[in-house]
């Protein structure tokens, strides 16, 4: 991953997210937001380690607690009255980042052969949400009704 800048990595993650959100959630529209449209950094979601040789990057899919619930309901096809457990939400959001990472792995195959994926980890506080989004490691997208932040980072920063 030494030859891949974080901006390039993030671009691939954004493309992969578009594929997953359109195919899994039938999101009709997908847009990368410019800086003026970005809101405060979201904290709920999941991240997954991507390993290549001796290097690791985390990619994260972060959104609001409410959107995590909506995405989980859609995947489970559960009614609004059904109570979701934390395990179900973690499972659903973990699968979303897992699918995104799989698409990233395939898209980068020619440049980074033998990339390995770890297991997804659910988080409720990825960064301090009061801080501005770190650049160039993060971007915000709107997939249908869902606002999402995407992050690529080295594992040396603290994760909540």
């Amino acid at each position: 991953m030494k030859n891949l800048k974080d901006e390039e990595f993030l671009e691939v993650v954004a493309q992969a997210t578009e594929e997953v959100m359109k195919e899994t959630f039938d999101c009709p529209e997908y847009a990368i937001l410019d800086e003026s449209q970005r809101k405060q950094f979201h904290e709920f979601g999941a991240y997954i380690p991507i390993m290549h040789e001796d290097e690791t990057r985390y990619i994260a899919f972060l959104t609001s607690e409410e959107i995590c619930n909506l995405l989980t309901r859609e995947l489970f096809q559960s009614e609004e009255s059904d109570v979701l457990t934390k395990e179900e939400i973690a499972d659903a959001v973990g699968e979303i980042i897992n699918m995104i990472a799989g698409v990233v792995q395939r898209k980068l195959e020619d440049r980074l052969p033998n990339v390995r994926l770890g297991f997804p980890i659910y988080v409720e506080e990825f960064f301090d949400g009061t801080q501005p989004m770190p650049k160039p490691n993060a971007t915000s997208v709107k997939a249908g009704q869902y606002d999402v932040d995407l992050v690529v980072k080295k594992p040396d920063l603290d994760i909540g």
Partner: protein
Amino acid sequence: MKVLIVDDSKIMRRLVRKTLTAAVPTELAVEEATNGLEALSMIDTWKPDLVLTDWNMPEMTGIELIEMIKEKALNVKVGLITSQGTKAMKQRAKDAGAMFLIHKPFTPERIAEAIGPMIK
């Protein structure tokens, strides 16, 4: 036709079951296992015709499960439904004896295309 779905994710087992039912016109009997060891036990007792397994699972990966099935000479067809799937992984799956590899996210059409030829 009896199909065993193997995935550590409850939501993915549910999605695969739902998509499978929508994709295949034949009546299917579907059971689920949450890991490779449980799957091996169910293959022995329930005797499915087809196993659909995830690749990336704790304890025993999908490819290790396929290798165990081959080693034990169990008479069951196996396909992978996985987020991963580079050319090298596809080749490894093929060499291990997998009938097909379907990427996540998947559609009923992709599942029908892979499983259709196996329906008796």
